[in-house]
């Protein structure tokens, strides 16, 4: 049966777009994370020795996130490690934030960096690579 012909074609869907996914199964359908606005390069840092057993409602992906964030990891690397879309990771992070299992450290906005030392360090570091 050619059901696809009866459905209106979605404007985003073509060969250049990725595969169609159902990413929100993991998030219970939530698409508006409480961790909205968390930067791609914000560092997520898990609480030391988190008591995950106290939260049986958490998914394995939540637990992996806490594990990966043990030493501090940027959001975008967590998403790549878990092979999850950034939007999904933000929803999961929101769940962990409200339980106090992780802290999120937003990066300073580059425009507000306090002084030139950081830029100088970047140039020196790049030259030394």
């Amino acid at each position, binding site marked *: 049966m050619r059901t696809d012909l009866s459905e209106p074609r979605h404007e985003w869907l073509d060969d250049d*777009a990725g595969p169609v996914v159902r*990413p929100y199964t993991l998030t219970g359908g*939530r698409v508006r994370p409480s961790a909205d606005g968390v930067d791609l390069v914000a560092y997520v840092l898990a609480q030391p020795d988190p008591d995950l057993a106290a939260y049986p409602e958490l998914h394995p992906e939540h637990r992996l996130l806490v594990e990966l964030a043990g030493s501090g990891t940027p959001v975008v690397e967590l998403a790549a490690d878990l092979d999850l879309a950034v939007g999904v990771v933000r929803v999961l992070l929101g769940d962990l934030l409200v339980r106090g299992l992780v*802290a999120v*450290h937003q*990066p*300073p906005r580059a425009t507000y960096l306090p002084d030139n030392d950081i*830029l100088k360090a970047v140039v020196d570091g790049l030259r030394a690579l």
Partner: protein
Amino acid sequence: MDSVRYDGERRGHRVPIALKILVAGGFGAGKTTLVSALSEVRPLQTEEILTGAGIGTDDISGVETKSTTTVAMDFGRITINDDLQLYLFGTPGQDRFWFLWDELAFGALGAVVLADTRRLADCFPSIDYFEQRGIPFVVGVNCFDDARRFSLEAVRRALDLDPDVPMVLCDARDRQSGKTVLISLVEHVARQRGEPVSTA
């Protein structure tokens, strides 16, 4: 939210500063190649979800009827020191994914626009984007083997660039060459702030 902190320290655990640099340019201009050449790890890929369902809803109703897809973003990392990391993000090449650029560009240190002299016009939208938002950028003219060599001045005129925007000839496959482009960007950012980094 209380648990979202903006400080860099917690219980003695230092959190590095991560700076974002965008790598933009037309399709096939060498964005992914440049990110790969510079990244200390195999370039990573992540996805962002494209969906109209994200606006103003917090439950499952309606989500099941939405078609959802993702767009991939390449990124790479350069560790400067224990406290400082650069993250390079290749921007999605197609114009229709530009709303993702706003997320990438937020708080970014600056951008590299890669120009391919065979298809110079392909980088106009990127240049417009950064000019309009006041995001510092440099233009890297990627020297493809089969491309006619133009002088940087000719390319600058063709791009109608401000005289203070640096232009660098580069080979996106070459790490040293990519480094030169990044250094010129950071020096440009410093000059714009009136605190030039010494070129010693």
